């Protein structure tokens, strides 16, 4: 199922005006792999918790693309809360978008809502 859903999302992403360059995690295995990689690295991981019909999430998409280009030392991924509800619940995600900042597998910060400045400030703070 993961492969098929991934394919759908790739098609979906590629149809948008500016395709998302943020890696989407669709399955529990993809999530586990990403989390384990994060635990063994000093690299900051930013997780965008999103949903299909969340307007502010769509608003943040081009901003995240910009950040992917700007911060090559930071890893960006996105999780659809309807695809991985357990992960969203585990991190207490209630409103979308929620951006979770992890380092070595531990949460170091979070931003709730479509706030570019807030997110950028926290990325700058934790990426070193």
């Amino acid at each position, binding site marked *: *199922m993961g492969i*098929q*859903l991934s*394919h*759908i999302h790739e098609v*979906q992403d590629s*149809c*948008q005006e500016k395709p998302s360059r943020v890696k989407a995690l669709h399955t529990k295995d993809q999530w586990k792999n990403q989390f384990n990689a994060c635990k063994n690295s000093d690299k900051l991981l930013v997780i965008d*918790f999103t*949903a*299909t*019909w*969340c*307007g*502010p*999430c*769509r*608003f943040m998409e081009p901003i995240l693309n910009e950040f992917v280009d700007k911060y090559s030392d930071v890893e960006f991924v996105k999780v*659809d*809360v*309807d*695809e991985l*509800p357990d992960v*969203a*619940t585990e991190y207490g*995600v*209630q*409103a*979308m978008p929620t951006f979770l900042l992890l380092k070595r597998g531990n949460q170091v910060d979070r931003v709730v*809502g*479509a706030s570019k400045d807030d997110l950028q400030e926290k990325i700058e703070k934790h990426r070193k």
Partner: protein
Amino acid sequence: MSIQATCSSFGVGISSFVSPLTRSRHRTLIRAQVQPSEKSVEIMRKFSEQYARKSGTYFCVDKGVTSVVIKGLAEHKDTLGAPLCPCRHYDDKPAEAGQGFWNCPCVPMRERKECHCMLFLTPENDFAGKEQTISFDEIKEATANM
């Protein structure tokens, strides 16, 4: 599994004749790929225009944001029977829809004009536009590739 994924790619096409009940049953399998019915989109579009006027709030300068939220409300109306906020994560969506706190207009909106979804923005909000209307075609166009 392949049937479910295949079905989802036809979401747009079948939405006009699939009953809400049928869609609801499929939803747990297809999840976010379901398109709302045109009837519900139109209901939520009209509601949004009326409530913006009533509350003195405005749509986002980016009507794409407005369109996505209206479709999200319509999708929840189809699948849950109530326009549950599409910008929140719930452990139990049917229970939340029954409880009503996050059904649009949600309690924070009714009490403090706080719409986290950016559907209804107070004039001083940086992202507030000047419009309280949105056409069905605008919604369709803004969400054509979803």
